[in-house]
């Protein structure tokens, strides 16, 4: 019983939904502030992401007549729940709480793709042609980035000949002994490939093709309003708190002991988020066919090069 309560606490409060939502909103404030600095604007105050979500949660959700209402309304909550579960698993490994079960890396990969699938379902269910276009773009994008993302993460798994593990805490423990995966060429290549995939997973420019405000008016999210839209925004926040942490855990070692360890980990996360923001602000949006060619060409090649080098022990 106590164990069950502990697990529920992990999932709902810390380090799961509540913690990652707040952390994600803080990171999205950093995103907005850094963007503003790049663009010579003042930018929002630190409370703005929170106000935005609170405002959305207090509004009415309008369900279009042509939509498949059940799927349309379920999608954001499924996305949020799955993102929260992925966040819990990643952050438990970060904080070294308990030993994660074998193979949780694979579970995280599946969970992380559920929000994208929820967007596809929600967009297709909305009954809006622009939503359908957004959904089809999201689908193509998922197919584009999933393969290199998995290959890049596997590069780290194959770095160790004996004791290869698919468990996140196992990877952290291995890096504690043998130094971070980024210490090797294969780790660096894999990190770069995974970073590019995360840019697309987070829907940031140049890969915000599925939302593309000026082309298809937020695409799959076009018909969403109120709490349903708010939960999609919260899902994005949770992902923003999860993906950088996953990258750090897999490629760059876990959190060290004491305040110094926390500070170093926070700096690593901030660095990754800053890279996302700078890439976002120095590129125009790619076209969907260009994104496909980019991920299936150079990024996949990079990820598989990392995998091959890892197997060779470089």
């Amino acid at each position, binding site marked *: 019983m106590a164990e069950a309560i502990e697990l529920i606490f992990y999932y709902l409060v810390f380090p799961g939904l509540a913690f990652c939502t707040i952390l994600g909103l803080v990171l999205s404030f950093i995103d907005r502030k850094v963007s503003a600095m790049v*663009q010579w604007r003042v930018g929002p105050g630190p409370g703005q992401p929170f106000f935005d979500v609170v405002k959305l949660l207090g509004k009415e959700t309008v369900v279009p007549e042509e939509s498949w209402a059940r799927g349309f309304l379920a999608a954001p909550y499924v996305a949020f729940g799955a993102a929260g579960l992925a966040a819990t698993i990643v952050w438990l490994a970060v904080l070294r709480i308990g030993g994660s079960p074998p193979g949780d890396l694979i579970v995280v990969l599946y969970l992380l793709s559920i929000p994208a699938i929820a967007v596809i379902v929600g967009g297709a269910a909305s009954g809006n*042609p622009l939503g*359908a276009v957004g959904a089809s773009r999201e689908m193509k994008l998922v197919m584009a980035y999933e393969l290199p993302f998995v290959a890049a993460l596997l590069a780290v798994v194959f770095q160790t000949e004996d004791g290869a593990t698919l468990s996140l805490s196992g990877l952290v423990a291995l890096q504690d002994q043998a130094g971070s995966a980024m210490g090797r060429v294969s780790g660096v290549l894999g990190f770069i490939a995974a970073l590019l995939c995360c840019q697309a997973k987070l829907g940031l420019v140049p890969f915000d*093709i599925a939302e*593309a405000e*000026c082309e298809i008016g937020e695409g799959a999210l076009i018909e969403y309003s109120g709490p349903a839209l708010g939960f999609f925004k919260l899902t994005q926040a949770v992902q923003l708190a999860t993906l950088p942490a996953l990258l750090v855990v897999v490629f760059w070692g876990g959190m060290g002991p004491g305040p110094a360890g926390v500070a170093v980990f926070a700096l690593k996360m901030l660095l990754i988020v800053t890279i996302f923001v700078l890439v976002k*602000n120095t590129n125009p949006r790619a076209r*969907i066919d260009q994104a496909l060619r980019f991920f299936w060409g150079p990024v996949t090649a990079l990820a598989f090069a990392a995998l091959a080098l890892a197997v060779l022990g470089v």
Partner: protein
Amino acid sequence: MKQVIRIGPFHPLQEEPESFLLTVEGERVIDVDAKLGYVHKGLERLCQERTYDMIPIILERICGICSVTHSVCFCHAVEDIHGVEIPPRARYIRTILGEMERLHSHLLWVGLAGHFIGYNTVFMWAWKYREPVCDAFEWLTGHRQNASLLKVGGVRRDLPVDSFPAVLKVLDELEGQTKMLIGAVLDDPVLAARLKGIGVLTPEQVLDWGVVGPTARASGVKTDARKDEPYAAYAELDWNLIVQPEGDVFAKAVVRLLEILESIRILRQAIAKFPPGEIDCGPLHVPQGEGIGRYEAPRGEDIHYVRSNGTNMPSRVKVRAPSFVNIPSYRASCIGGTISDVTITLAACDPCYSCTERLAAVRRDDGGPPLSFDDLVRLGREKTRAIAREMGRKPDLGLEIRP
């Protein structure tokens, strides 16, 4: 599967209400239709009830950006009826105003184009560079927009000569910033991938559709009212016509960016040669007759037609804004592209719907006569009542239907 995607009447792509119906198969656009007429203002009609002195001030309100364009163009048309030559100082003032307007209009487009392809940094930077130009406009005329400076036969007020050094300083800074922007645009591989070969208009299509302005010049067609029929001081100044051969969206961006540098060159010469003398040629009596005014607006050639009946009010003023002929060319440039390409192509001719809107007469399905003003009022009230009933409010809103 064919689908119709609506861009507009309210859409983040455009800041004005207009509607484009894209027929798509997947992402590929196979047909384009435009529906305009959402912001008809009735300005042509209004001009028939105002004197020649008042009209330039009304016509400044046709467009939110080209405040100089339409009033100068109207003045050209009336001066054409009269046959009057305006004094040199007035010609130079009109040149300076027109080129300042071209500067801020082209910078505005560069920013918007960046925004449309998701490059918000370019959007913010271009608009930041535009800001001092508007300030300089204010130093020269007292207003950032709509300076009410034009009148038939000259200009209304002189420019403050002591503000010229500050204006020149703004131009110097803008030259460096524009060169930086040109470098950033020409060297960016992602921008090239997005814009090159997109929305191509061949020179033949430009002539077929009657396309004007930078949109035509980006297809290698040398058309510019400033060269074809020089007005104001353009014949006395040394400047080049910017032409690019490719005809795609990238070429249109390059033409506009290079035209900014050319405008800076024109402005420097106009300020250096600024002549002394009168700024207008006194009261004019406009005789009976008709006249045509041509003017190279930032978006292309603007044409005004004015018919005078010998009184102090024109009997007809007709405005043909450049966007009016550029918008139909979408059928040549957009069909065959993807939705991503079409959105930037729609923006590439720098359309101004506010300029383009004229009276739209709607044909009735039953072939009857068009609805009268009273019919429209009646229909509007009936609809208001129906909505009120639907919402459970008191159906009578205190409006009486005229018998």
